[in-house]
């Protein structure tokens, strides 16, 4: 009975969390993996974002946006509006601009 219970527990756990996490992790590796040399730097992205929306930069980090590797710059605008700006890490092109 105890052995039966243990096997059942092991099978259930194997089916659930580790499996799910491992599956997602494998598919997710590209989202967090660092890219090669960035032609467009984080500092340039911040500068560009501040020109578009003057204010305080609260965060600037590497993020994916619709499959593209971008610099995400979050700004608390002087106008009271919060902005999220996404710039392509290779070209510096604005990929998305969102008001929060």
């Amino acid at each position: 009975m105890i052995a039966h219970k243990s096997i059942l527990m092991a099978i259930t756990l194997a089916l659930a969390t580790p499996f799910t996490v491992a599956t997602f992790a494998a598919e997710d590796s590209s989202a967090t993996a660092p890219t090669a040399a960035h032609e467009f730097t984080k500092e340039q992205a911040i500068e560009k974002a501040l020109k578009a929306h003057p204010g305080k930069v609260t965060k600037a980090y590497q993020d994916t946006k619709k499959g593209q590797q971008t610099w995400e710059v979050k700004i608390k605008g002087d106008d009271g509006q919060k902005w999220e700006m996404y710039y392509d890490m290779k070209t510096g092109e604005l990929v998305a601009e969102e008001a929060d």
Partner: protein
Amino acid sequence: MTEHDTTEIIVWDPLVRLFHWILVAAFTLAYFSQEGPFEDWLEQLDGAWLQTTHVWAGYTIAGLLLFRLIWGFVGPRHARFSDFVQGPRQTWSYLKEVLTLRAPRYLGHNPAGGAMIVVLLSSLTITVTAGLLLYGADKGAGPLSGLMMGASDAAIHSIKEVHEFFANLTLILVVGHLIGVIWESLLHRENLAHAMITGRKRA
């Protein structure tokens, strides 16, 4: 004091307890790694780290929900849905008894607690599903990226609204769950939170 008064038995099996406390940790991390009441404090932390934490906490919750669904059918007696899921009539009638301090004590989940579990698990399932859809559509990442790539901005906005609404609803439900636990603990003079740690309850 008789021996009968102090006899304790295992009610919550180890996996139910692990599920419960990992879920508490994962939901807390997922919720508070995004914008919330600690926004000013979060500004001090690395954005990429917060994003990764949020996504991984979400994956953990997805795995836990899958586990709980299976365990609800094959687990020990008090872990099974058949042990604690009751109809609306019984649930309402029990809630009335709770409010009038006449509710009987249950060894496993009482009807109100059982209903709360169903609602909590449903709300979490919708939150996680919307989160995965959003991750695929907005970031082009995660297991649903192939399915969701090319989604319109309006669709992304709607999915985000659903994700946030149900995350907030889950938090409200958690507060309701805590009130229920405290109320029942006082009513029946037993520490239900402690029982979820040790698995033991008075027989």
